[in-house]
């Protein structure tokens, strides 16, 4: 008997129907968090390992709480991700964990494709919680869910994603998910941050902020990592804030009911002006709430493997 494992490795492998199914599921899980007893017994007796080999507080907390609200047992492992530094390879670490017979391993890792490696070698469902610059599928789903809740649709919306597209897994999952659901996606950043061929994921690319923002229904800003200064991807955060940051003046060029999103944590005054981050169009905290629902839905989905 071969156990069929369901994984969530990347949104790129999901069909439109798969994505909508997960969003619907997440919507129904949203209710659980508004109840007096915020817990259901669905995954009682199941084990979820959160293997976070790259610093992350938000995503790990969100996955942990999601697992707990479904009554799963959780085990959290954190550490540095470099195989060389640790002296133990990722596969060795994962095989050791697999000896505990976990049902799901949630992996955050600095290398693109690390979840795919585990999925090939480890007998557990693998959930990608962010792999290098590749994808962050649950972030992509929670962004979709948040937009859908506010706009009642995804199809036909103009969504601008502004920031360091080249070094953003959030951008990649966002582009893939949004375009698959029929949104018009425009990515924007200085040309050093627009990777070649990004259009193939389903978007347009422009280095001009105002063009990206014009008539947008949604603007997603990305966190700027100051380490990129060393790689000469942008000359200074002052110039970045002026040309690519989202301030009230730039936001005025979007549709009046345009939503402002950010995966967090925000560099206030760099990619987002404080007045915009805290303004009425910001739905950043809804993203956090929806992150929990989405991760419950994903854990539920992945635990549902059967035997074949």
């Amino acid at each position, binding site marked *: 008997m071969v156990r069929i494992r369901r994984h969530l490795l990347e949104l790129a492998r999901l069909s439109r129907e798969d994505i909508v199914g997960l969003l619907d599921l997440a919507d129904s899980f949203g*209710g659980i968090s508004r109840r*007096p007893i915020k817990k*259901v*017994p669905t995954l009682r007796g199941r084990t979820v390992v959160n293997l976070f080999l790259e610093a992350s507080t938000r995503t790990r907390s969100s996955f942990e709480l999601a697992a707990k609200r479904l009554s799963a047992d959780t085990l959290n492992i954190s550490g540095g991700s470099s195989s060389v530094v640790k002296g133990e390879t990722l596969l060795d670490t994962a095989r050791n964990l697999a000896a505990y017979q976990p049902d799901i391993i949630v992996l955050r890792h600095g290398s693109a494709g690390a979840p795919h490696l585990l999925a090939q070698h480890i007998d557990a469902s693998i959930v990608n919680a962010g792999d290098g610059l590749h994808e962050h599928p649950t972030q992509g789903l929670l962004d979709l869910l948040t937009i859908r809740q506010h706009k009642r649709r995804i199809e036909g919306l103009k969504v601008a994603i502004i920031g360091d597209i080249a070094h953003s897994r959030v951008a990649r999952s966002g582009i893939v998910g949004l375009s698959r659901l029929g949104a018009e996606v425009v990515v924007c950043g200085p040309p050093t941050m627009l990777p070649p061929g990004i259009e193939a994921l389903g978007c347009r690319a422009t280095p001009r902020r105002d063009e990206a923002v014009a008539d947008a229904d949604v603007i997603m800003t990305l966190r700027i990592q100051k380490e990129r200064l060393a790689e000469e991807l942008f000359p200074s955060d002052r110039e970045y804030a002026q040309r690519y940051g989202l301030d009230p003046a730039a936001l005025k060029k979007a549709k009046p009911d345009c939503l402002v999103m950010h995966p967090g944590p925000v560099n206030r005054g760099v990619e987002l002006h404080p007045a915009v981050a805290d303004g009425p169009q910001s739905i950043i905290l809804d993203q956090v709430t929806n992150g929990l629902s989405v991760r419950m839905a994903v854990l539920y*989905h992945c635990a549902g*493997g*059967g035997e074949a």
Partner: protein
Amino acid sequence: MGTLVDRRQAMDATAMRRAIRRLAHEIIERAPDLQRLALVGVRTRGVPLARRLQALIAEAEGVSPPVGELDITLYRDDVFDGLAIPEVRPTLLPFEVQGRAIVLVDDVLFTGRTTRAALDAVMDWGRPEHVRLAVLVDRGHRELPLHADFVGLTLETTRDESVRVRLVETDGEDRVDVRGREGAW
């Protein structure tokens, strides 16, 4: 295994109407305080049954108890059998569960596992004064120590038969059939 075929009709529309009316009166009789009564239908067919009971109670007593809708998917013990993803629909309980006299309403009582899951689900919303169970059909073969407080019809069945309830609201007609495998009589 053969396909499922109707073997006998257990209830027609008239019999069902009478059974539900009787259930409504039994619920009224045993309710200590109609103001605290709430009906909770177990999805799918428990919900329209609960609404019918609500209307009958309102007609008789002038008090319309609130109706909740319960989805027990997340509480089932067989949720992961097979690869299909079960549909999870919202649970709607538009009242405080705390201190209520709850009547769970379902169409068929069989092994008791659904009722067990429904009890767990209700408890997660608060601490009711008590919970009673009303079912349209009790077909026996319990696997858990549970019983229904209000029963529309007690039906003799064999373990491998199935009982199909059809309601106007969900299926376009009111009737109950006992079904079995073709040729497996």
